[in-house]
């Protein structure tokens, strides 16, 4: 038995070393060239955007390829900050904070109930969530507007925020998470006489940090980048978010091509928070594999 195991291991090592040698049909250099080449293509648009946002309108129109501004200027950023950008930023922050908080709380509560609390109608609720997830978001543009208008919350913060406060996919993530962890600690708390809410708040949530962070990242990114919901729930410039404001900026002088630095500056600015979040949590965001990617 032990001998067989050793033999397998030796054979495995031999194969692995053979694989290492014949790993790639391209060879190591070819593989790296490909990896770097593709990476450049993926990064290039962002670099171009950043570089051109510091150019003058004239310079950006005449030298669109150059990554070094002829005369370095922050004029585009200054103009943005003197105009409505601070307002857009405020609105986006309000929406993002409330939506993210709401989703993290409500989705984890519902996910917990669907996994742990056996209540009558649970299966029906679950089936309903699956059905809701299957509805394509864009199909709901007009319908959402109709309800928002009917409820009298059109062109208000509640109209922008309430419809995004929960999402079926988030509930799903949390439910799957709770399904994957053992309920033994909660059981101990239950025996100690802790009620459902106390168990959830003081025992379950602290244990669910990793899933909550995932949910936080997804919610933050989704609400920060949301455009269609803002289009159908508001019209007054007072309520423009970064996405809607920048979208309006982009379609303003489409063909002129001379105002690009200010548009690119807005695009760059709205990318920064998501980029920061991405770099802080990049391991978690890209760790779909549960630790198999350790380097």
């Amino acid at each position, binding site marked *: 038995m032990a001998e067989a195991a050793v033999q397998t291991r030796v054979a495995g090592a031999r194969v692995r070393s053979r694989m290492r040698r014949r790993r790639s049909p391209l060879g190591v250099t070819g593989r790296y060239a490909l990896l770097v080449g593709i990476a450049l293509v*993926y990064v290039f648009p962002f670099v171009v955007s950043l570089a051109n946002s510091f150019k003058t309108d004239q310079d950006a129109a005449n030298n669109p390829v150059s990554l070094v501004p002829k005369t370095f200027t922050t004029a585009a950023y200054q103009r943005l900050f003197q105009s409505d950008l601070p307002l857009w930023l405020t609105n986006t922050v309000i929406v993002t904070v409330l939506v993210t908080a709401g989703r993290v709380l409500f989705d984890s509560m519902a996910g917990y109930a669907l996994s742990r*609390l*056996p209540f009558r109608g649970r299966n029906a609720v679950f089936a309903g969530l699956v059905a809701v997830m299957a509805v394509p978001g864009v199909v709901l543009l007009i319908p959402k507007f109709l309800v928002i208008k009917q409820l009298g919350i059109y062109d208000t913060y509640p109209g922008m925020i309430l419809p995004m406060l929960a999402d*079926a996919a988030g509930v799903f993530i949390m439910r799957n998470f709770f399904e994957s962890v053992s309920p033994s600690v909660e059981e101990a708390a239950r025996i100690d006489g802790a009620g459902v809410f106390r168990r959830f708040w003081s025992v379950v949530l602290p244990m669910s940090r990793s899933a909550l962070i995932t949910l936080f990242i997804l919610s933050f990114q989704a609400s920060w980048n949301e*455009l269609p919901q803002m289009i159908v729930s508001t019209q007054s410039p007072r309520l423009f978010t970064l996405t809607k404001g920048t979208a309006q900026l982009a379609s303003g002088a489409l063909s002129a091509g001379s105002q690009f630095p200010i548009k690119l500056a807005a695009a760059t600015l709205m990318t920064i928070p998501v*980029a920061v979040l991405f770099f802080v949590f990049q391991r978690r965001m890209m760790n779909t594999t549960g630790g198999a990617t350790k380097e």
Partner: protein
Amino acid sequence: METVMARAAGTTSAPARSATRRGPGIRGRDGVAGWLFTAPVLVILGLFLVLPIAMAAWVSVSSWSGLGSPFSSTVKFVGGANYAALLAKPGLAQSDFGTSLRNNAWYVLLVVPVQTAVSLLLAVLVNRRIAGQGAFRTAYYFPSVTSSVAITVIFLFLFSASGTVNAVIGWLGGTGPGWFTETRGVVQLLLQAVGVHAPAGNGFLGLTWFDWVAGPSPAMLVFIVMAIFTTSGTFMLIYLAALQQIAEEIDEAAVMDGAGPWKRFWYVTLPMLRPTTFTVVTLGLIGTWQLFDQIYVGSKGGPANTTLTPAYLSYSQSFINNAWGRGAAIAFILFAIIVLFTVLQRLALRERTPRRRRSHG
């Protein structure tokens, strides 16, 4: 917050206290708590997802013009008139809708296969343990997390008449097209280059057959490239997760049998990835039929409606033209198209995999 919760726990569950002692019961404290815990999500989704669909279903068979409530007595039931205007009655509404379907169909046809192939390639490339693996993954995934608005703005600059792409084409001695002004399809442009011109003739949904095969306009091509750029990172992660679940032993066994890298990929890896490919293609189909943000930001359907999509048309018919019934009808037809494609694709990919069960999502 904590005290509120604790107090709530105390009050709501007082009558059911004895039930808990007997363990979890459907009617006990957990039963009440189950509904309380799911209530916020149910209220929000019910109010902003289920109810809207019901309201829109009514609007799609009504004459509502956007003024007042769609349920007021002046709004009339018009039956299938809105649907007929789009599908059966020749006219502007029909040809606009046909155009939007044509545009989006080309988009789907080109984006889905390419993004699937590119994401698989990226996943295979970054799956091996190599120096800088994390940095490469980051670079490929980053476009997927950035806002569609920001990326559209950047691509508008790259592909503007005096933009980066045309400047590079210029260096190479060519002349770039007016990406956002050229209204002919790329297939049409290629055909014209060899002397074939548009024949007259009848067609389908207000477009001639030639219009249908004329291909995406250069502007649509920009959106196609952009979609591949922004989605391949996400799908790369899905493939990567699947690749790492393929046991190393299987690959090793194939090596023992003397299979080279290409053979291993085609005959071992790819078949094992079929469930993942199914997921990626399904998500791709669902996503690509919903092209909206980029059009809203980038082109508003122009030039000459060549980037009009059903999703954008549904929006513009309602919010700009006040033809709410027609806009809602387009949304429902789009929904049907997405369901149809998902089902068709399911049938097509299921057929050849009778043995393997899905082992992971």
